[in-house]
């Protein structure tokens, strides 16, 4: 039996028996099927439901349903004082608590217009960059698991554990730190902290190379991600993408460089964007590569911070913390570069209350995920898993 080229014949399957052509199947009705992925699907990294309209293996539309993890963050903020919001911000992006706190703290400081001790800024940047590495390790490890590579996941979590240990030593908690406060820090870092961080940097450099050998140069991994889910740069900007997602589309945009805050202008680091040699610009592999490169840049930042840091002599991490936070009436939109993109806070103060009148968290994953409909159109079901993984969502931040 041999199948003929049936192009132009519609849905017909024919076979040839000696000289005659026999029609096997004609006008087969292809039916659209609804496939619900999630809320309890491992590749959705949390509780996200995707309702996929499929035509065979091809997805015609994937509609995300959110809100399973909605904890009324914004409503809570309106009922507590400004400093009491900090622990809530940890629970937004729980893989990068330090970065979320950082973003919130600089937003309120912008509204209050206060000066921060220099050593505080350095410690903030060190812990934030450590947390960025930890977060990217989870992103990369779980992305590998989504695509069937188990070993990198274990390697990633082994190294992430060291970072969590360091941060726990500094703040007392593994993931939900409440360490970066408005105007300062909860406490100074322990005596030998910087030495240990330096040791970690030396330890992790070769591990990062090992990780890229395992994944980025892995034939199967590359085949699953190369050219999948391509997002052109202008559409990505229109969708409001930020962070590694936007840089994966070839836009050199990093808030640490383009809208500098804290001490980032003094530090020397690169903003890696794909050049189109190893990957198609804007595809899943590009986004993965950006994350892998960023970890190495973060190591550079940490090293520089340790070298430049002012000594702890006469240092009080709480010296600039205001006794009572009651900003003058006004609004502010502040943001920081989180591992997943731009985390912004819109705060409104009425000048009388010690509580924010309005506190909106502009979540990076929420915005990145909103492009799901466009990204998934015409993709195969297994590729959908690759696409969700490359967006690197944390549902705590999406649903808030």
């Amino acid at each position, binding site marked *: 039996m041999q199948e003929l080229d049936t192009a132009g014949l519609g849905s017909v399957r024919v076979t040839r028996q000696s000289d005659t052509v026999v029609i096997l199947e004609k006008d087969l009705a292809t039916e659209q099927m609804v496939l619900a992925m999630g809320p309890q699907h491992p590749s959705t990294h949390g509780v996200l439901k995707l309702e996929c309209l499929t035509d065979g293996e091809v997805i015609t539309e994937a509609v995300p349903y959110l809100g399973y993890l909605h904890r009324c963050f914004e409503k809570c903020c309106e009922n507590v004082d400004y400093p009491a919001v900090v622990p809530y911000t940890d629970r937004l992006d729980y893989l990068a608590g330090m970065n979320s706190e950082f973003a919130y703290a600089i937003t309120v400081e912008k509204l209050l217009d206060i000066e921060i001790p220099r050593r505080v800024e350095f410690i903030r940047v060190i812990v934030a960059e450590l947390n960025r590495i930890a977060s990217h390790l989870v992103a990369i490890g779980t992305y590998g698991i989504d695509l069937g590579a188990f070993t990198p996941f274990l390697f990633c979590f082994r190294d992430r554990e060291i970072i969590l240990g360091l941060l726990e030593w500094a703040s007392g908690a593994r993931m939900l730190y409440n360490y970066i406060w408005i105007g300062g820090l909860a406490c100074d870092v322990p005596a030998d902290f910087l030495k240990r961080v330096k040791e970690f940097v030396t330890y992790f450099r070769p591990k990062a190379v090992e990780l890229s050998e395992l994944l980025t140069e892995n034939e199967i991994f590359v085949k699953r991600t190369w050219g999948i889910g391509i997002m052109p740069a202008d559409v990505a900007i229109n969708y409001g993408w930020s962070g590694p997602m936007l840089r994966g589309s070839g836009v050199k945009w990093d808030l640490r460089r383009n809208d500098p805050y804290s001490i980032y202008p003094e530090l020397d680091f690169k903003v890696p964007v794909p050049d189109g040699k190893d990957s198609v610009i804007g595809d899943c592999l590009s986004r993965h590569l950006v994350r892998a490169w960023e970890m190495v840049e973060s190591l550079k930042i940490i090293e520089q911070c340790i070298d430049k840091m002012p000594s702890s002599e006469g240092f009080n991490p709480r010296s600039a913390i205001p006794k009572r936070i009651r900003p003058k009436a006004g*609004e502010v939109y502040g943001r920081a570069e989180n591992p997943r993109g731009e985390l912004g806070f819109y705060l409104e103060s009425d000048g009388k209350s010690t509580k924010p009148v309005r506190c909106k968290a502009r979540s990076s994953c929420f915005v990145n995920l909103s492009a799901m409909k466009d990204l998934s159109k015409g993709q195969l079901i297994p590729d959908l898993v690759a696409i969700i993984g490359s967006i690197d969502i944390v549902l705590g931040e999406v649903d808030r």
Partner: protein
Amino acid sequence: MEEGKVISQLVQESAAAYSIIHEKFGSAISDFDANGTMPFFEVVDTSRWTEIALFMRDHPRLKFNYMACLSGVDYPAEGKLGIVCNFESLTHFHHKLAVKVKCARDGGSLQSVALVWHTANWHEREAYDMFGILFTGHPELKRILCPDDWVGYPLRKDYKVQDQYHGIKVPY
């Protein structure tokens, strides 16, 4: 001191962008609020909001191609609801600008800009979900974070939570 200079430069850039919009739309937009933390203007004639949005996105000297944030806000004292949008221009210019648009608290609606910036789609759905702001011309205006059959708009200042949801006691 240096930081003060940087901030004032940002405000100047925003003011320059504002004057281009003001030249075109005149009294349809309010005066420029040159505060240091978030310079903004308000759209007075809300029926021209989409037109203003398109102008801001496409004008060669504005190019506000990136909507960083869209937040719904409740103004109970004025009897209004509103949105605050933060714009900036990625890769073209450095300027940033915020825009406020307000509508009546009861029965008011705003024009949707979801087709101008795709990112506004979900942000507007969230504003609808939390404040009950209706956006005309939105491709699929439905709740996004709360369940579809939730009663009330949680972030309104006068919100009272429902007693029961499908037989489950809500306030605890």
